[in-house]
């Protein structure tokens, strides 16, 4: 991430250290992860210890220190999705992609994550793939979903 872009994000929040979470989320959104250099830069600019930024980066589900795949698959494991079989879908994806949640395929094509609830409970089980919701999923529909999303 360029210094200019980081400066823009810092200035967007008036270099206010209490806005650190908004800044981290903006970086995450742009880069799909939090580069170490960006955290060090923020630490220096805002006068916050790097330890604190690292703690935040590992505490929150939405922040990641490793780059994501080109296609991001989120499996909702909320209660409504769970009772409707989200587990089976997750297992199928793990098997299909040969990765565990939190990991990226070796070709960087897919990353797999679970999310506690997407708030689309009526559609359960739900997947969020590259920002698009797939409702009433079943293990049978996984192949076509992967096909479609990687096109």
């Amino acid at each position, binding site marked *: 991430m360029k210094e200019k872009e980081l400066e823009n994000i810092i200035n967007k929040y008036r270099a206010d250290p209490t806005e650190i979470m908004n800044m981290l989320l903006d970086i995450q959104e742009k880069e799909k992860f939090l580069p170490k250099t960006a955290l060090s830069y923020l630490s220096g600019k805002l006068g916050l*210890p790097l330890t604190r930024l690292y*703690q935040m980066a*590992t505490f929150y589900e939405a922040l990641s220190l490793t780059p994501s795949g080109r296609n991001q698959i989120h499996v909702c494991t909320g209660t409504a999705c769970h009772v409707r079989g989200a587990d089976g879908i997750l297992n199928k994806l793990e098997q299909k992609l040969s990765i565990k949640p939190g990991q990226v395929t070796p070709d960087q094509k897919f990353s797999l994550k679970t999310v506690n609830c997407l708030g689309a409970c009526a559609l359960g089980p739900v997947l969020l793939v590259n920002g698009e919701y797939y409702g009433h999923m079943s293990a049978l529909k996984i192949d076509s979903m992967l096909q479609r999303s990687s096109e």
Partner: protein
Amino acid sequence: MITLWIDDKQYEAAEGRTILQVALDNGIQIPHLCYHENLSSFGGCRLCQVEVTRDNKTVLTTSCTYPAMDGIIVRTDTPKVKKARRFVMELLLSLAPDAPKIQDLAQEMGIVATRFTPAGDNCIRCGLCVRACDELVGAHAITFAHRGAQRMVEPPFAEEAENCIGCGTCVQICPTGFISMEEQGMERKIGKWKRTLKMKACAKCGRPFISFAEIAFIMDKVKNPPPADWFDYCSDCR
């Protein structure tokens, strides 16, 4: 001054003191692990449970985080308190079953073994090292990372703790021996923080006694730095 009751006796306390501090000041024993007099209260080990009655409501709570308040009634020995402490102790023992300090505390409460499979790396996540590094030393070299069952203490990015000056405060304060420090020739190693530091030898006795990183840290932080040759000699020879 604040007046409060602990186990049927009245005590006076200054504003801002916690129940645990008042108790310890007055020789009342309450077991505790994550509390240290020179550090902020944390409330993580949950061992210092007491029952507090305030406005006719009684709660089980940790005495290290509860401020001494006027008129509160504290009980340190009720069946509920004992039950809570015993079970918490059993959980702590499962995290650091080989640590002498933990074993001793457990034994005092009559616990010889834990029913749980030892889950641990010997770290009980009491946070003494993190707070000491932040609050006493000011180096901010290590932190808690991750959450829930994955929570642990580590340097940023789980790499070498670049801010660590090798002062050894974390090693001394750790109640379980989770953190250790090794001296090898002119180097000091803290394995847990992946840190190796070059040491300076005393000009008189030749003993390596302080890391160059610590000297730089002190010269930078202290308002009136000592004379330049201050660190030529160890404290014994100075």
